[in-house]
C-alpha cells in the first residue's frame, strides 16, 4: 500500500518518530441518551498521543455512538471531552476538523460528483488559505492555493497507492479503492487524531493486512481511534483497547489483558451462542477468533 506501509512497524508500540504527536483525547464519563434510551452510560477512554486505541464490542454496544461523540456528530448528554486542554463537547464537526481531528465514515462517504483528486482536495479544506474574493476574481493567490492543495492531495493519494485514480469518479471504482481514497481524504488534512470507523469492512485478507501495516505506521504521526469488527486486526494494531457492551464499559487494557478478560469473553459469546447448546465448550476458545 505504498511507502507508508513499507517499514512494518512492530504493530505500533511506542511512538519514536520525528513528529510525535502531543495531543491527548480524554473522554470522561460520557453518557448519551436518545430520548429515553441510554446508548452510553458513563464511558471513559483516553487516546494517548501516538497510540492506536481500539474500541470494540458486540453489535449495538455503542461503539459508533462513542465515535460520533468524539467527532461531534452526536452531543453527549453528560461527560467531558478534552483535547489539547480544550473542552470539545459543544463544538460542531466542522470546528473539530479545524482542530486536527479527522474521521472516516463507515461506508466510504465519497462525493460522487467530484473526481478522486477533488475528493481528497476537499479533505485538505482546513489548509486552504485563499478566500472567496480571490476565487471570485481568480487572482493568482487562488491558483497558487489550489496548486498547493492539489499537491497535498496527490501526495496523500500516493501514500495509499491511489494516485492513478486521480481523474476518476468514485462511483466507477472498486470498493477497496474507494476506501483507500476515503482514507486519503482523511489523511490529507494531516490530522493529529484520526478516527477510523470500520476501515476493514469489505476488504480481503491481503488488503486487511496492508491496512494493519498502514495503521501501525500512521501511529507515528497521529493518534488513532479505531472501531473495528475484525478482531485479528484490532489485536494486531492496537496499543490499548476499550470494550463496550450495552452502552457500558466492560473492560479496558492492552490487547493481551482484554483478550483474557472473562467479562469480554462472556459479552462476545453471549452474543454468538444464542442458538448453540454447548456453551461450556465455546467458553474455552480464546478471544482472538470471535467476531463482533
Amino acid at each position, binding site marked *: 500500500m505504498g511507502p507508508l506501509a513499507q517499514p512494518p512497524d512492530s504493530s505500533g508500540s511506542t511512538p519514536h518518530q520525528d513528529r510525535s504527536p502531543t495531543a491527548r483525547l480524554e473522554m470522561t464519563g460520557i453518557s448519551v441518551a436518545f430520548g429515553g434510551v441510554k446508548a452510553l452510560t458513563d464511558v471513559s477512554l483516553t487516546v494517548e498521543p501516538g497510540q492506536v486505541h481500539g474500541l470494540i464490542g458486540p453489535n449495538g454496544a455503542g461503539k459508533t455512538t462513542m465515535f460520533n461523540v468524539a467527532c461531534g*456528530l452526536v452531543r453527549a448528554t453528560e461527560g467531558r471531552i478534552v483535547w489539547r486542554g480544550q473542552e470539545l463537547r459543544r463544538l460542531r464537526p*466542522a470546528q473539530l476538523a479545524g482542530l486536527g481531528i479527522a*474521521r472516516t465514515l463507515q461506508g466510504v462517504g465519497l462525493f460522487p460528483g467530484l473526481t478522486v483528486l477533488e475528493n481528497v482536495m476537499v479533505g485538505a*479544506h482546513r489548509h486552504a488559505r485563499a478566500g472567496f474574493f480571490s476565487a471570485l476574481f481568480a487572482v493568482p493567490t*487562488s491558483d497558487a492555493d489550489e496548486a498547493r492543495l492539489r499537491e497535498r492531495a496527490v501526495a496523500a493519494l500516493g501514500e495509499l497507492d491511489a494516485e492513478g485514480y486521480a481523474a476518476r469518479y468514485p462511483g466507477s471504482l472498486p470498493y477497496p479503492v474507494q476506501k483507500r481514497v476515503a482514507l486519503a481524504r482523511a489523511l490529507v488534512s494531516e490530522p493529529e487524531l484520526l478516527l477510523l470507523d470500520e476501515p476493514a469492512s469489505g476488504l480481503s485478507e491481503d488488503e486487511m493486512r496492508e491496512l494493519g501495516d498502514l495503521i501501525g505506521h500512521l501511529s507515528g504521526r497521529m493518534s488513532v481511534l479505531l472501531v473495528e469488527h475484525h478482531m485479528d486486526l484490532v489485536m494486531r494494531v492496537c496499543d490499548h483497547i476499550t470494550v463496550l457492551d450495552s452502552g457500558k464499559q466492560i473492560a479496558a487494557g492492552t490487547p493481551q489483558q482484554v483478550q483474557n478478560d472473562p467479562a469480554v469473553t462472556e459479552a462476545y459469546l453471549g452474543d454468538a451462542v444464542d442458538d448453540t447448546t454447548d456453551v461450556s465448550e465455546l467458553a474455552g476458545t480464546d478471544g482472538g477468533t470471535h467476531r463482533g
Partner: protein
Amino acid sequence: MSDLQTPASSPTAGAATSDAPSTATAASNASSAQAAGGRTFLPRNTLLRHLLVLVLCAVGAVVLLETTDLGFNAQVGYVAFYAIAAGGLTVLTGLNGQISLGHGALMAVGAYTTALLLDAEEPLPLVVVFLAAVALTSLVGAIVGVAAARLHGPYLAGATLALAVGLPGLALYYRSFLGGEQGLTVSSPDRPEWFTDVIRSLSGGSPSGVKWIAYISVACLLITYFLLANLMRSRVGRTWRAVRDQEVAAELAGIDLGRWRVLAFVVSAAAAGLAGAVLALVVRLTAPTGFTIVLSLSLLTAIVIGGLGSLLGALIGAALLVFLPRVLRDAGESLDMDAAQAAEISYVVYGVILVLVMLFAPAGLVGSIRLAWMKQRARRAAGGTTR
C-alpha cells in the same frame, strides 16, 4: 443510467463501462482540478484562461449584435437577463443542490431598485445603480439564505415559493411608492457619446437606444459569467459541490455547511439582482405581473434543460426560453394558422419539447453531451490499453 453508479470489478473494467459522475448534475462537474492534466492550448492560469474566453465571447457578441437587426438586438437583451439569472440559479441548484422557486422575486428586487434609482432627477451613473441593485438583492438573498440553509428539498421549495408569491405583492401594498399593478416605467439611460462614435466606426450605422441597452445587457452577462466561472473552477465551487453530494463527509472535512449554503444563496441572489436590473432596462417596465412564479419556473426550466450546474447550459436554456416559443409561433403562422392559434400551439409544442428533453437527456443538453464525451473517452482509453 444506474449502471454508471455500480462499482466495477477492476479499474480497467471501470474505465471500459463508464467513468461518469451522478447523472443529474453531470454538467456541473467540470473538475476544479482539471488543470493538472488537462488540455494545453489554453493557459493554465485560471485568470488568463477565463479572460481569454471572455474576450473571445465579447468579440463574438459584437459581431452578433452588429450583423443582426434591431429586433434581434432586443431579443439578445432578453436572453441576457434570463441567462444572468439562470447562471446564478445554476450555481445554487446545480452546484450546491439547493432549489429556489423564488428567484423571480429576487429579480423583482433588482428591477425595482433600478427603476427607482433611474427615476431620480439626477440619476446616478448606471454602474452605481446596477451595483446598488446587486447589493440590495444580495442582502435579501442573505436573509432568505439563512432560512434556506436549514431547509431541504420540498421544504426549501415551499419556503422560496412563498417568497415568489409574497414579495411582488409588496408593489401592490406600497402603491404610491412602487406603482401598484401598473408598475414603474423605467427611464432609459442616456447613451454616451463615445458609444455612438464606436458603433459608427464599427458598422457605419447610427446606434439606437435599443442597441445601447443590448450592449449593456451582454456586458453584464459576460461579466457575471466570468465571475461565476471563476468561482466554479475554484475551491469555492468544489466546496459547494461537496456540500451538495455528502453533507456529513463535508462537515467532517471542516466545512461549515450552513455558511457555505448561505454563500451560495447570496451569490445566486446577486446574479438575480443584476438580471433584474438588466430586465428593467430591456423591458422598460417593472410590474408585479412580470415577476410571478412563472418567471421563477422558467429559470428552473432553463437550467434543467441546459444541464444543471453548467453556465453554457444556462445560456442555452435561456436562449431556448426566448427563441423557441417565437420560432414555433412563426412556424405555426407559416402553416396557415392565425396568430392566436399559433401562439397557443407554440406553448404546447414547447412543453412537449421540454418533456422529451427530460426523458431522453435527463442530464440536460450540456450534461448529456458531456456524459457521452466521457463515455467515448473511457472507451477509447480502454481500447488503447493492452491490459
